[in-house]
């Protein structure tokens, strides 16, 4: 019986279809992660939330801009509104400052990673080339290959509309990231080294290190970033880009008037903000 079970497991691990009744003997994701150093599937928890990049080799204008952001936060008490806080984070946010859980769905041709927060799904095209005419985007285009048992993910094609950390570390369209994911032999830990290269903002590539921990958790919580665009959040806000100004704002009702969330087109947004009580602008 053990021989058959092991054979089924091996067949399954090799991607060979086996009769469905026997698939009931399928190994768990944890067993597969422990058995195969190249299997990353299942749910993981981010080891810890780190929201800053320290010691990046910033070019002078990058450092000056960061100083301006820190001044806004520290001296003026403003909230820094980035791509993350305005609910449009780029893929590097999943590398630099992921939170909570993620699920990996692994195929031979591609690997899908769905992050809880920042909420996004990334697709890694295995042994593929980046397309020649790539449309710039927040997520870019990711290719992957194996170096031994380390998964190397190469991503380009970013749109320059997001920051790398919560202090507004900038990025541009020349951003190029290389992630190296290596699983521990017991399948319970993933060490990730991400090298960030962007000659418009940094004098040299630099590397950050993060980790995921395998979890027995079965359901992801959800991060519904846009659920409540609270006006009070925008009262003392420093918008890193004008793009991040809210198109929808919650309006606190006065007296019997109900509270409402109001959405306006860009040209109407200024009027909306002017119409709000002074203490809610």
């Amino acid at each position, binding site marked *: 019986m053990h*021989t058959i079970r*092991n*054979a*089924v497991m*091996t*067949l*399954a*691990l*090799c*991607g*060979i*279809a*086996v*009769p*469905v009744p026997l*698939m009931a003997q*399928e190994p*768990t*994701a944890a067993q*597969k992660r422990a058995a*195969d150093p*190249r*299997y990353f*599937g299942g*749910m993981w928890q981010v080891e810890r939330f780190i929201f800053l990049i320290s010691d990046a080799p910033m070019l002078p204008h990058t450092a000056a801009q960061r100083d301006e952001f820190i001044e806004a936060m520290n001296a003026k008490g403003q909230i820094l509104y980035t791509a993350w806080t*305005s609910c*449009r984070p780029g893929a590097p946010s999943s590398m630099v400052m992921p939170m909570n859980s993620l*699920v990996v*769905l*692994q*195929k*031979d041709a591609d690997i*899908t990673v*769905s992050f809880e927060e920042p*909420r*996004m*799904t990334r697709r890694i095209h295995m042994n593929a080339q980046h397309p020649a005419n790539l449309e710039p*985007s927040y*997520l870019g285009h990711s290719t992957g290959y*194996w170096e031994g048992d380390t998964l190397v993910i190469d991503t380009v094609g970013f749109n320059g509309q997001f920051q790398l950390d919560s202090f507004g570390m900038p990025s541009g369209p020349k951003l190029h990231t290389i992630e190296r994911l290596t699983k521990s032999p017991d399948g319970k830990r993933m060490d990730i080294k991400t090298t960030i290269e962007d000659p418009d903002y940094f004098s040299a590539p630099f590397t950050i290190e993060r980790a995921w921990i395998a979890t027995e958790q*079965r*359901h992801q*919580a*959800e991060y*519904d970033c*846009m*659920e*409540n*665009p609270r006006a009070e959040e925008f009262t003392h806000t420093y918008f890193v880009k004008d*793009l991040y*100004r*809210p*198109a*929808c704002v919650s309006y606190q009702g006065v007296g019997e008037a*109900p509270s*409402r*969330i*109001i*959405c306006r087109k*860009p040209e109407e947004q200024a009027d909306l903000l002017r119409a709000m009580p002074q203490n809610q602008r």
Partner: protein
Amino acid sequence: MFSAAVALLGSPEFVCAQTATVASAHSVAIEGTWIPEAYSERLLTADGTPPPLTDEGAAIYAKHAAARGERDRQYDRTLWCAGAGMPRMMFLPYPFEIRADGEYVGFIYGWYRWHRMVDMTGRPADPILPQTMGYPVGEWDGDTLVVKTVGLSDETVMDAMGLPQSDELTLTERIKTLSDGRLEVRFTIDDPRYYSRPWEAVKTYRRASDVTVGDDVCPDRLVLGEDSIRNTLP
């Protein structure tokens, strides 16, 4: 053939050279990119009739109906790009992808980066706080994937008209491919608070190999003055 393979694998010399992925005959059939065959802002039962609202449900629906003409109707949180939730996410005129691996069947949606991971371990759902996508668990019934979802939020509605749902909703989806290659999903809505009996809706989807589930960033569309949800199929 299978016994031969087992015999081969019994040999200590056998080495699997491929990356580990588990193939399931059933999941392969439903995997891929799908797009609704039709889109309507009003959800009807499988018989084409209005859902059987309770008095409480009807009162809420009437309130939503009164607000329907308002540009900033508050019952529809998708207007400001908040989550559409389940089951409405399955009705939106956007493509979605089904990807299966190990203990999950993943649904990756083309509307504003949403996804849900259906737990296939066979254990009951373990809801904590209500959330818009709920806590889905699945099992195979022959060639049909049966997904049961509880722990759903009452802050979402089931269609653009404001058909209500409560946190008592148990949503069951029976998902399978039809003989003509389309995907059929039969939704059973069991929400005793707002509906006098469980009722069923049916949607079909066409395989959309030519469509990519792209990165849709809803707040960017709002900035451009576009609708948060388009009202036609691409």
